[in-house]
């Protein structure tokens, strides 16, 4: 499945990242890397620190220790806004869409960083501002086609069923034309059919746009099918890292998932 893509150099990596909330140690000295164009999964049981890791990469949480390296630059922590500017987009586990706005407006909001005209031109809707709006609209329409949500364009997002909201969330992230896409449990709460659709979209994004994908997932089966490499976290520590087959055979991983006699 991943043979056709050329997996490249390391684009994003974390070294010895530790994060705690008061006494709760969410992440303890976790290190791993993500290569260009690959689908990289982070898995682990509940409370393993998966979402915390993603939030560190995206700049929502700021780790107390460790560094984040992205395209040769090293950071002690990220800022959401800076991450977005550098081409890191994300989706949310508990869908964080702009509920009062239409599907179209939600996705257009994802183009925000690409907008160059100033407030005054926008307000008057003249010249460059209007041209720009039309250009961005074209990109957005392609994404809408790509994710097969044409029929819901004008609908208010809050009224759409869950599976579709997840798709709009993905669309908004794609509108940023990111080089790295962070997906926080993209398949959580979906039925089988919706899961299959979402898998297809993720692989298509990876394949057609060459987007590097980091995804968190609960569903082991799904992860093993679509990922190139997998990191396994448990109680905030990394207990496994490798191809799906390697991870599947790892005793520590089996223990973490199935439980072990002490």
């Amino acid at each position, binding site marked *: 499945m991943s043979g056709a893509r050329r997996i490249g150099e390391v684009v994003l990596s974390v070294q010895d990242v530790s994060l705690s909330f008061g006494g709760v140690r969410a992440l303890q000295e976790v290190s791993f890397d993500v290569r260009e164009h690959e689908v990289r999964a982070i898995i682990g049981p509940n409370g393993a620190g998966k979402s915390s890791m993603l939030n560190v990469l995206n700049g929502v949480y700021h780790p107390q220790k460790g560094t984040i390296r992205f395209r040769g630059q090293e950071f002690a922590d990220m800022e959401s806004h800076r991450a977005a*500017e550098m081409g890191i987009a994300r989706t*949310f586990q508990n869908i*964080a869409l702009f509920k009062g706005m239409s599907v179209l407006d939600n996705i257009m*909001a994802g183009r*925000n960083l690409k907008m160059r005209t100033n407030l005054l031109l926008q307000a008057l809707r003249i010249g460059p*501002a209007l041209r720009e709006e039309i250009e961005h609209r074209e990109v957005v329409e392609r994404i809408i086609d790509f994710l097969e949500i044409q029929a819901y364009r004008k609908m208010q997002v809050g009224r759409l069923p869950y599976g579709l909201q997840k798709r709009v969330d993905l669309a908004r992230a794609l509108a940023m034309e990111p080089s790295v896409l962070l997906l926080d449990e993209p398949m959580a709460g979906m039925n089988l059919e919706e899961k299959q659709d979402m898998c297809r979209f993720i692989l298509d994004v990876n394949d057609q746009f060459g987007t590097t994908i980091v995804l968190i997932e609960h569903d082991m089966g799904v992860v093993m099918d679509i990922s190139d490499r997998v990191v396994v976290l448990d109680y905030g520590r990394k207990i496994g890292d490798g191809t799906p087959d390697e991870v599947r055979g790892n005793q520590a991983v089996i223990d973490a998932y199935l439980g072990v006699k002490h």
Partner: protein
Amino acid sequence: MRKNWPVILLGAVLLTGLVLPLATGASPPGFYIEVLLGGLMAGVLYSLVALGFALIFKASGVFNFAQGAMVLFAALAVARLAERMPLWAAMLLALAIMVVLAWLIERLVLRPLVNQEGVALLMATLGVTYFLDGFGQTVWGSDIYSIELGIAKEPVMVLEKLFQGGILVNKEDFVAAVVAAALVLGLALFFQKTATGRALRAVADDHQAAQSVGIPLNRIWVIVWSVAGLVALVAGVIWGSKLGVQFSLSQVALKALPVVILGGFTSVTGAVIGGLIIGVGEKMAEVFLSPILVKTFDLAGGGIENWFAYVLALLFLLVRPEGLFGEKHIDRV
């Protein structure tokens, strides 16, 4: 739908009250329309102040107690600056001052307090209120000043052929209402149709998601507070030219409180409609309901205008706490 009956009942009572004076012939049509227009015009001004509240509440979740102080501050600035320069220049300069003020508030008050309890932010805006009231007097003085818009204040008689006695219309009120309506319309278009407006709405809906697509919160807040400053400026100039620029102007803002409760805290449309309902409602109540109450219960006199808005707001809190157009909050337990 079943649960809506108290709202429907309340609406029906209000509507009946609205048409009764005309239907029963208690009032000549000309006079009735005069009162109605007067109410609408006052309502537009309430809407303006309420709009400032709604904008800031929507975008930053802050209940900005200082909106009234901003109205006074802007009006003072225009009145005093206009003594030295033409009115248009004074207004432009005052607008610039309001934008600087917005920037300062974002820097010094909002940014350090972001993610704090709502109460902390409310208290902070209360502080801004008193600072602005005092600072305004320090800079601009504490007398009563006037703003001359150069529009005739004397009422004129129109439609004399249609209604007996004609309708008395104040030209300045009329211009004010048109300006306010244009501003409201312009803002609505700005929010719906421009990229920045979209970013504003995005921030209002979800801070975190907005940041994840690279919308800078701080810049958005400066814009929102600047727009609130512009709205305060327009309201201040209109009220100021009507009543004189004085301390009581900041009290006008308290009337905007029932307006946003009625319309819904997060709704721009709600602020507009709420303002009109309250403007018309209190005028009607004062003119038509007051004499009935006085006669029936042998009371001393009117004053309904002063409390009508608050009682209406209270009723709304009982039957529809989220207001006419507000978002209903359902918290998961």
